[in-house]
């Protein structure tokens, strides 16, 4: 099952994903997708190292969907909200544009 | 394993042998027996650093059972416990990592304001502090009131 690894950045807590280049990105679109368990384990190992390096906190792998055009679908409501970096309160007076 | 003196954050060079070990489940009878023994050090066990039962036991030993000897904290302890231990009646804490003594010392000095909060109750430490009544939780409970 396709998976990506996500976490929160240590310094500001913002949601991030492990990207193809080994960096951490705020855009789920740039996340590196692992196709099988072995690959996921490899991503997790990179993430564990990033925890030791004090880049991120609380990393975990999550199963994602892949759309026809290859776009990553976070699947659950929770992960969709995290990926959007905002609340779902679109009509709010203070809402922050995406 | 080293023994820290809580008030100073220094290592006790030649610790006394513990006379009684109290588990957190110790009841009144166990406290009574321990306090009435030969007054050698009483060790109170902390199975986990979040388990705060030992704080109550130490305070009961001091205030209810009049125990004047050394009370020692043993088990899973962290430096952040230091000031709470001191103020609820402990004298010493046994720690596994001698390196950590520095942090324990830092923690007890960082809380200097807390334990220096003045109070008006007459005691041996009264002369060192401006006499003004304060709420007692911030008072040292290192020694019970003699009243």
């Amino acid at each position, binding site marked *: 099952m396709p998976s990506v690894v996500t976490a*929160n950045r*240590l*310094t*500001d*807590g*913002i*949601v991030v994903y492990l990207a193809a280049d080994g960096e951490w990105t705020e855009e789920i679109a740039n996340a590196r997708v692992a196709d099988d368990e072995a690959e996921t384990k490899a991503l997790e190992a990179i993430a564990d190292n990033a*925890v030791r390096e*004090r880049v991120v*906190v*609380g990393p975990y792998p999550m199963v994602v969907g892949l759309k026809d055009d290859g776009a990553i679908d976070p699947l*659950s*409501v*929770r992960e969709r*909200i*995290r990926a959007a970096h*905002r*609340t*779902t*309160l679109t*009509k*709010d*007076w*203070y809402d*922050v544009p995406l | 394993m080293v023994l820290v003196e809580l008030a100073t954050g220094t290592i006790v060079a030649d610790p006394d042998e513990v006379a009684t070990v109290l588990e*957190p489940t110790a009841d009144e009878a166990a406290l009574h027996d321990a306090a009435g023994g030969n007054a050698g050090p009483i060790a109170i066990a902390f199975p*986990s*650093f*979040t*388990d*705060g*039962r030992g*704080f*109550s*036991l130490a*305070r009961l030993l001091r*205030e*209810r059972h009049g125990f004047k000897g050394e009370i020692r904290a043993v088990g899973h302890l962290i430096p*952040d*416990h230091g*000031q*709470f231990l*001191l*103020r*609820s009646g402990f004298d010493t804490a046994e720690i596994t990592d001698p390196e950590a003594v520095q942090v324990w010392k830092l923690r007890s000095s*960082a*809380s200097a*304001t*807390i334990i220096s*909060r003045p109070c*008006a109750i007459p005691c041996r430490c009264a002369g060192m502090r401006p006499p003004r*009544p*304060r*709420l*007692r*939780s*911030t008072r040292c*409970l290192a020694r019970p*009131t003699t*009243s």
Partner: protein
Amino acid sequence: MYRYDEFDHAFVNERVAEFRDQVERRLAGQLTEEEFRPLRLRNGLYLQLHAYMLRIAVPYGVLSPRQLRQLAMIGRKWDRGYGHFTTRQNLQFNWVKLVDIPDVLAALAEVEMHCIQTSGNCVRNVTADPYAAAAVDELEDPRAWCEILRQWSTLHPEFSWLPRKFKIAISGAAEDRAATAFHDIGLRIVRGPNGENGFRVLVGGGMGRTPYVGQEIKSFLPKEHLLSYIESILRVYNLHGRRDNIHKARIKILVNALGIDKFREDVEADWEATHKDAIDLPEDEKRRIMSYFAPPELPERPARDEALAARRESDPAFANWYKHNVLPHRVPGYASVVISLKEPGRTPGDASSDTMDFVADLTERFGHNEARVNYTQNLILPHVARADILELYEALAGAGCATGNNELLGDMICCPGLDYCNLANARSIPIAKEIAKRFEDPARQEEIGKLRLNMSGCINACGHHHSGNIGILGVDKKGTELYQITLGGNPKDSASVGTIIGPGFRAEAVPQAIDTIVDTYIDNRHEGESFLETWRRVGAAPFKEALYGAR
């Protein structure tokens, strides 16, 4: 209002410096997340879904204009320009950066505020009746006692590592406006046998996955023994509360496992053995703290205002607001005014920095420099001259804060839910908004009358759904958000926990379900009957029938 003395200042500043050091050590790698977590939690800092969240203590819900402005400034400078008032009368910021927290704490210390013990297994912020020193039915101001408890519980040597968190609420009035029955300890100030005030003590109330209404452990506790008696309750809890299972660790579980009589026996035995005078507060210290809470000097103002009466005649919107959001004051010529944070379309309990600044101005112009936070997530100006009410209303209306729905259906309590909260199972705010939209018409809310609707995004029940006349709980059913409805909860006197009425609803069906419940109530109620009275009389059957049809 309480003012810090040199000790308080030194202590809070020391804590800021200490946390600055801890953050630096975390960033430098000297502390791991496991080691840092308990330290940050003791300073009210959580890591939530999107970012760090900082919970700021608002002791017993009292705010000065200076504090409001500082909170507004913090919101602008270090957050996204708004904060969220919670059911524990606290304020939460949702988007602060870890690296900025020490500066935020320093800014809070400047205005005598902090985040100490807003998290962790210790005695939390003590909450109180938000109409203290203003309500007509008040026997005694609870705030001085809250402050005494705050000082006593802050870094308490014995009770800082309890089995679980511990919440205390105090009401000094005839009506319970602090939900005291849903706290670990609930205190009601009552008149004793000799005409002296004392405390009626409730213990073991709480929400969460096993909700309980608090039970009476002492019908009358002489006031001077408050600290020693509470210490005995806490000691029995600290020694015997469960530590093996986080879901069974609150005092309510212990009280109900032992039974209130056995629990009382244990507490009384401990209390008997206590040197009470070594713990209870000396009289002069008590008087010193009381003196901070002297009611403000309220100059004489006319008790009747003709312009007010005329406006109520001519302006239905004003009349509606006046009816619900203006409450009687013990001093003739004055009133308490509720500033609603529940305008339809807004997130219940959220306030922008602009609103905080605006309320700060209002407290200075009309409110004798004091604002209060209600646990129902509104703000209150406790002391307003009736002659100033029209002008105040104009100002509020101009800022979208004149929604006249206090204690009505639109005055929903709502937790942050899945839009912010890491523990959430479902969203709560969007549902609250949909319901607010459905019942937007003031005439409809008027027809329904007083009704407490509370919603939580998970079983932790921060949104008090158990005590709502109507309660909504978000659950996760195989990846879909589902909403369970409970009926018959009551946070006030004769408190009760709501009962689940049947299978849950999908998000889009919730507003219609609420509508159906409300219609069933209206169809069944006798003249003048509240929702709760009707519910207690007719039981679940008509509501089940209306919601799920005959089965």
